[in-house]
């Protein structure tokens, strides 16, 4: 269970990114965090593993208070939190395998990692994960040789090999095409279900958030303005999160998740409907 209590972040420039955020995420819950750019989504998840230091408030992961940990304890704690990044953030000149194994860095000593002599169990796990996402034949390819969707899958393997208790996911689909985006979101959700992992997913795409998350939290100017189920996102709620816009098309029900082609068609039809609606106005 992750518990944020009156978490506040104020940057040195004076910008208040988060204002007394309270949030509880039970084990195994996949939560989508939506909100306009600059609402504090990235700051929020980075405050959890302290890539950004919170100004005040508390973050508790399974009863460990994270905000007061020393540097050494912080490193140990970060092993328990997997992170998936916007634009993948793979180390481009390292191989796929090295990128995946870098998720074990917190568990092995410096010289072992320097000579790439990871324990056999780590290597087995890496191959198993790569196989799970269909990339085991790419293990020795350099990360920059992969396509966007493949890279994000490697990023997912890197996070999962940490054997985390929590996943922080920052805009996983920001630079992927619609189909790959869905595949990646589906993969993240399946893996979370398989491992009973809870996840916070920052995402811009409201439709994707509704499809793949069981709970949606809307952030606006550093404050939570919506917290509820995906189908509770009414035009009024979206207006409150993002501002005035015609939201009818965005919250169209999309239920058939398995058949991608239909989804894509439905997506474009929705896009067309939105244009029509805008034209009518």
């Amino acid at each position: 269970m992750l518990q944020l209590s009156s978490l506040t972040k104020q940057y040195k420039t004076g910008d208040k990114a988060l204002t007394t955020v309270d949030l509880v995420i039970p084990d195994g819950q996949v939560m989508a965090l939506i909100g306009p750019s600059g609402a504090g989504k990235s700051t929020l998840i980075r405050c959890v593993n302290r890539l950004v230091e919170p100004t005040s408030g508390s973050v508790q992961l399974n009863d460990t208070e994270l905000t007061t940990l020393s540097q050494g304890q912080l490193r140990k704690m970060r092993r328990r939190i997997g992170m998936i990044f916007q634009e993948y953030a793979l180390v481009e000149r390292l191989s796929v395998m090295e990128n995946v194994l870098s998720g074990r860095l917190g568990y092995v000593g410096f010289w072992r990692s320097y000579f790439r002599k990871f324990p056999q169990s780590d290597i087995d796990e890496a191959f198993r994960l790569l196989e799970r996402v269909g990339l085991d034949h790419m293990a020795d390819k350099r990360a920059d040789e992969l396509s966007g969707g493949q890279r994000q899958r490697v990023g997912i393997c890197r996070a999962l090999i940490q054997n985390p208790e929590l996943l922080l996911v920052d805009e996983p689909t920001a630079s992927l095409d619609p189909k790959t985006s869905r595949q990646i979101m589906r993969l993240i959700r399946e893996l979370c279900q398989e491992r009973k992992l809870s996840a916070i997913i920052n995402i811009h795409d409201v439709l994707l958030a509704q499809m793949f998350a069981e709970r949606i939290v809307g952030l606006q100017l550093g404050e939570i303005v919506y917290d509820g189920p995906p189908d509770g996102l009414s035009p009024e709620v979206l207006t409150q999160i993002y501002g005035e816009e015609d939201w009818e098309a965005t919250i169209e029900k999309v239920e058939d998740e398995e058949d991608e082609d239909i989804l894509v068609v439905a997506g474009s039809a929705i896009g067309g409907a939105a244009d029509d609606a805008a034209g009518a106005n």
Partner: protein
Amino acid sequence: MSLQRIWKRPPMIKSSLLRWSLVVGGTFYLALALGTMEVNWGRVADGLPRAERFVMAFFPPDFVSKFGAIMDGIYESLWMTVVSTVIGIALSVPIGLGAARNLAPRPVYLFSRGVLAVSRTFPEIIIALFAVKIFSFGPFAGIVALSIGTIGFYGKLLAEDIEDMSVSQAEAVKATGASWFQWLNYAVQPQVIPRMIGLAMYRFDINFRESAVLGIVGAGGIGATLLTSFDRYEYDTSAAILLIIIGIVMVVEYSSGYIRKWVR
């Protein structure tokens, strides 16, 4: 719509007064400077035949009569180059890391930048002058001078490359719970290494050429042989030495290009 809106590219210097005074001032100074330069055309004319005799004395280059001395000088130069490049780079890695703003705490950063600034202030030949005074004549003084020069060059470029690295890649490795050294090895090193290998080759090239100059102040290397041949008016031997230097620099240049392509 008869109203036409005029657009011109905004000038780089906004104030037209400042702009024009810079143009006029610059032109005026240049005119004055050219006018002040005194060229004694008579002396230039006298010098031309001397130059011709001088250049002709280089031909044909004589590799043979001082072969032993030339080879000793070349070997010494190459040895100085290898040793000073290795030592210089080894020392510049910690200093370069310290001089990267995104890595080092403020005091370390300022100290490392200070070291780099000092070693970059003096040309190798000046440092060699000091080194010769301190350690007396010989290649050791040259090695000291070249190593210090290498630190300034390599450390600064390493620091700047680290400052330009991708933040997200670095963040991703940090988020796995990696230690600082692991983070350096997995996130920073892969990003900077190709450029650093290229720069190491380039610095090797520079150090070799510099080693030819350092001999003039008594800091060892082929420069000493070259100076001796000049002093004895053995210009054909000088020509041979110069050709060998050019040849080696070309070989280094070619192979560094090849290696750089290979490590990318």
